[in-house]
Each structure stands twice: as C-alpha cells, then as structure tokens.
C-alpha cells in the first residue's frame, strides 16, 4: 500500500466574508499524479498555496509529507518542488545557470545535466531564459523545481496559455516525473490534461470537491448518457441513451431491414470533459 503524501481534512479558507475553500477532504498517495481540476476561481490556487506553505488556512487539518505546511521548515522544503502559476525564470540567466543557481539552494541536488535532459532542453542549455518560448520557460521552471530532487512536486496550471505542441511537450515532461517516482500535485482547468496525465482526479467547484476518482471512473460515474450519432439523408442525428447496447441493436436492425446506410455512425461514451461540464455547470 503506497504511503499517503498529502492528506487534507475539512480544509477551509476565507477571505473576509468570502469562503474560497469550504471543507475539502483529499488524499494523495506516493508516486501518483493527482490532478486538481476546476474552473478559474474555484479555489484551486488557494488550496495548492496552502499545501505549499504560502498561505495560512482558516480551518481544517493539512499534512504534506507528514508535516503541517504552515509550520514546516527548511528540511521539509528540501523535499518539495514548486512551479508557480505564471512565474518567469530570470531572463538574463541561461538554462544551465538558472538550474545551478537553484541547485545551490538544496542539500543534495540532482546533476544539472540530468535535469536539463529530463525537461527536454538539452539544445537550449546555454540559451538565456529570456530568449526561450513560453513553453520552454515553463519547462525550465519545472526543471528548477526538480533540481533539488524533491519527493513531491506542485505544478499550478503548468500548461495554461500554451499552444498544442507546447502542451504535448509539457505533458511528456510531467509523465516522465511519474517514471522518476515523484508524486505530482497538478492543478489544471483542462479536462484533457487531467485525463491524459492523472492517476487520480478531484474536481473542485465553488470551493468544494464535487467529484473524485480515476479519470475512467469519473467518466463512467457521471450518470451521463452515451451519445450515438449518424447521418441519414444528409441529416445529422444524435441520440442520447443510457442503454447504448439495446439502442444500437434497434438502430442497426432497422437500418439493415430498410437497406439504408447510417453514415458516420459513432458511439461516444461520456468523456471526463462531459462529466466536468455537467458538474461545474452553474446558473
């Protein structure tokens, strides 16, 4: 049984009268990529900043690597790596220099060359960060979080604003972190990102966790209908059903009997995206 790396019980955070986080319970296990998924303003960053020790909570219990982040010291910081939302590495330092600067902060850092390779910046090692693309800068930022050889990494919206190519590359880097045995706590508002990367997902909306499970479980559990679509006489037809097998049998039987072609016939199970949109729909 893998160990619990993060455990949160009834976490609350208020700003004045506004409760940004209202009673969250979560567990993240060792070696897992955990995606914290939700729309902007749902309380993701507030929660992750409490876990990182940047913010004080208003109530509840939090344990990260066995310590309370609000009281944890340097030894604890040795074991975590942080990539902030919208942070920028120093534009005047090269990739290798930025990593060496950060390596100096840690007791037993990973070799800088290894980290450069892990984030896919070997051909940019001597390029100044200011001359890198946004996606490359973020990968450097991941490298700076990785260079201290942490057990746990926090990535706050690591691919927001990226083009599809840059997102793919960032995903490869994050997937490789799991292979290194790191635990990754990832916030995102992209469903496909959670679906692609995460072992476990929690969906947060309005400061509360409204669903959790593996991406597959969540997709199946949403109570959403399966969609069958096809084209008949140049008309696009969509059928929603909770009993796709029977419905398909009925449909194809009819088509065979009538001798008509069901063009572009497609059966799609509800994706995590559908579940997410259904769950976070407000107003």
């Amino acid at each position: 049984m893998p160990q619990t790396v993060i455990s949160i019980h009834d976490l609350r955070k208020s700003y004045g009268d506004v409760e940004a986080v209202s009673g969250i319970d979560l567990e993240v296990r060792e070696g897992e990529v955990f995606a914290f998924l939700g729309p902007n303003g749902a309380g993701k960053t507030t929660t992750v900043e409490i876990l990182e020790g940047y913010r004080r909570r208003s109530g509840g219990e939090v344990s990260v690597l066995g310590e309370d982040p609000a009281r944890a010291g340097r030894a604890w910081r040795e074991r975590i790596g942080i990539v902030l939302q919208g942070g920028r590495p120093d534009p005047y330092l090269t990739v290798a220099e930025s990593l060496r600067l950060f390596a100096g902060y840690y007791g037993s850092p990973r070799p800088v060359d290894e980290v450069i390779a892990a984030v896919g910046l070997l051909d940019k090692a001597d390029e100044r960060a200011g001359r890198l693309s946004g996606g490359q800068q973020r990968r450097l930022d991941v490298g700076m979080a990785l260079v201290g050889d942490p057990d746990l990494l926090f990535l706050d919206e690591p691919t927001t604003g990226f083009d599809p190519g840059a997102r793919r590359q960032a995903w490869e880097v994050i997937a490789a972190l799991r292979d290194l045995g790191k635990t990754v706590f990832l916030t995102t508002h992209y469903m496909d990102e959670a679906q692609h990367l995460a072992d476990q997902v929690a969906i947060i909306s309005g400061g509360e966790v409204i669903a959790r499970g593996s991406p597959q479980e969540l997709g199946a559990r949403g109570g959403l209908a399966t969609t069958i679509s096809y084209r008949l006489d140049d008309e696009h037809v969509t059928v929603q059903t909770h009993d796709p097998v029977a419905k398909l049998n009925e449909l194809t039987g009819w088509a065979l009997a009538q001798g008509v072609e069901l063009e572009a016939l497609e059966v799609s199970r509800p994706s995590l995206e559908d579940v997410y949109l259904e769950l976070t729909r407000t107003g």
Partner: protein
Amino acid sequence: MSLALHQLRYDQKVFWRNPAAVFFTVLFPVLLLLIFAVVFGDERIDSGGGVEATTYYVPAIITLAVISATMQNLAMSLVIAREDSRLKRGRGTPMPAWVFIAGRVGNSIVLALVMLVLVAAIGRLLYGVEVPWAEAPELLAVLVVGASAFCCLGIALTALIPSQDAAAPIVNALLLPLYFLSGVFIPDSELPSGVIDFADYFPVRHFFSGFFDVYVGGSGLPWGDLAVVAAWGLAALLLAVRYFRWTPRGG
C-alpha cells in the same frame, strides 16, 4: 555565508547582462560628470571654501552613483522580481530569506564600490581632481554607511511600488528633486538657504554633504551627517521588515 556568495555571484551576472541597469547605474553617472565638466568647465564654485567645478562634481556624482547602485537599483530589480513571482519562487526553496536579501545588498555594495573607483579615477585622470588617499578609511566608512542606508531605503520603497511599470517613475520622482535640492546637480552655494534647510530633512543631502567634506575638505568623520543617514536607514529597515512583500501585487 557561502550560500550568500553563491547568490551574489548570480546577482552580479544578472546585473551586468541587463543593458538598462548597466546604463543607468554605471554609464549614466559617468555621462553626467562629463556633461557637468563641459558645461561648467573651469568655473569656480564657492562651496567648500571655493573649488573648481570638476572638484565639486566628482564627489557629487559619486554620491549619485552610490544612491543609484543601491536604492534605485534595488527598488527596481526587486519589484521586477516580485511581480514575475521570482521572489515567491525563491521562498518556496530551502534558501533562507536573509540569503536572498544579502545577495542583493551585497550586489549593490559591490556596484557602489565599483562606481567610487570609476568616478574617482575619471576625475583624477581627466580633470586632475585629487583622490584623498589619506582619508581613505573615513571615505569608505561614509560610503558603507550611506550604501547600507540607501539599500534599506530601496527595499522599503518596494512596498510603495505597485507594479513593474511604476518602479522607475516612483524612484525618479523621489530622487531627482532631492538631487537638485541637495546640491548634487546645482552647487549648494548657488541654492537659497531655505532650499538647503528643506533638503536637510532628507538623507540625500546629508550623504552628499558628509561625503563632500571628506573627499574635498579632508575632514574627519562627519558624525552629524552620518547620524541622519543612518537614522533614515534604520527607519527604512524597520518599515522594510514590516511591509516588504515576496508575492506579486498584480494578482
């Protein structure tokens, strides 16, 4: 301590690679000295018992350069780093906060010393302004007290600067008038006494006046001026401890 030196090394790299910072901290003061020397040439100035214009402007420009390397440079670079989340990022590592501050302050003091040597050398070589070797210890003492105080002022000032774009205007709006009123740009013998009395409330005037007395007058330590400069530095330090922030203000 070795960690602070590690930080200082990279702060130095970052400084010398930043063209705007190098221009305003290093080249601009030199340029000002050359301009003042051309404009006022061999005119005599009544300050300090009567000196040549260049003799007046060498310590004046060193004063400006030290303030620029410390207060101005720190306020601007810290706000930029804060708004780009680099300060917050650093706080998420095991590096203690004091190491980061020590690196930046050390960087500023190195630059202040570089400017002292550079401007004094230019003054000596181009204009024959004597370097007061006999007063070197007093000169360094004034410089270190001044540089430290203006570092504290620069760090405290960041609390008032909301964004990267606001950094340069706010710093200049504070310092440029004080340079004029304190005799750094216009010889103090030309200024109405009311202006000097007003400038006497502020540290720029006292740093300049104390530095000038040692550099030109060969006086001993200007205790009165140092006390005012140090008091401002101390007040700024307390405000900095209370109000300095590591996280971006712009959301």
